[in-house]
């Protein structure tokens, strides 16, 4: 079981801020493929992953990051703080 959280327009497209998933994905990229295959709203949100950033257990990460032992994955657009 893994918590997946979404922010900004990713959250709006997917329609929920957070969900807990049962997944066999080994990496972030595999998790994305699994989600895209699931429903249109995911396919839309993940259509262009170059427009997305990912954090694994609250640390900025990359799409090839492994999911073993991970509790939370977050997807969001490039940050606009400051």
């Amino acid at each position: 079981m893994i918590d997946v959280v979404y922010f900004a327009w990713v959250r709006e497209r997917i329609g929920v801020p957070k969900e807990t998933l049962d997944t066999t994905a080994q990496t972030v990229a595999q998790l994305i493929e699994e989600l895209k295959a699931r429903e249109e709203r995911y396919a839309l949100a993940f259509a262009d992953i170059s427009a997305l950033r990912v954090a694994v257990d609250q640390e900025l990460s990359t799409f090839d990051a492994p999911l073993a032992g991970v509790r939370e994955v977050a997807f969001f657009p490039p940050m606009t703080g400051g």
Partner: protein
Amino acid sequence: MSVRVQSDPFDPGQELSQFSQLVTGAGAIVTFTGVVRDEDGSLDHMLIEHYPAMTGPAIEAIETQAVSRWDLQASLVIHRYGTLAPGDHIMMVATVSRHRANAFSAAEFLMDYLKSRAPFWKKEFTADGASWVAAKDKDEDALKRW
């Protein structure tokens, strides 16, 4: 070293007053305050979303880097989330070092990292509707100098 992520407004002057009392033996205090800008008079308000579990630790990591790299005596980062109106203060950074060049560089470094590496997202609301602010290439490029 201190980080505050809050929805409440803050008073930059009061923050500087308190911060400057931390200065012992240091010579240079730099502050940066960001203000909500209304580009063309059309902005009604802005909503800042953040990632609570990540925001504090991410900013602390950035601040730890700045403190050791520029030998800071003290540093402060305040960043707001929630609803902000034009003219409101969004965020503030303060640094203290023995030398002015270090205090300036550390403050600019913190700003550049907060822009592109702290998990905040801005949504602007105008009479025409709402839209997420897109990250700017030049903000990403600004990180390359450090």
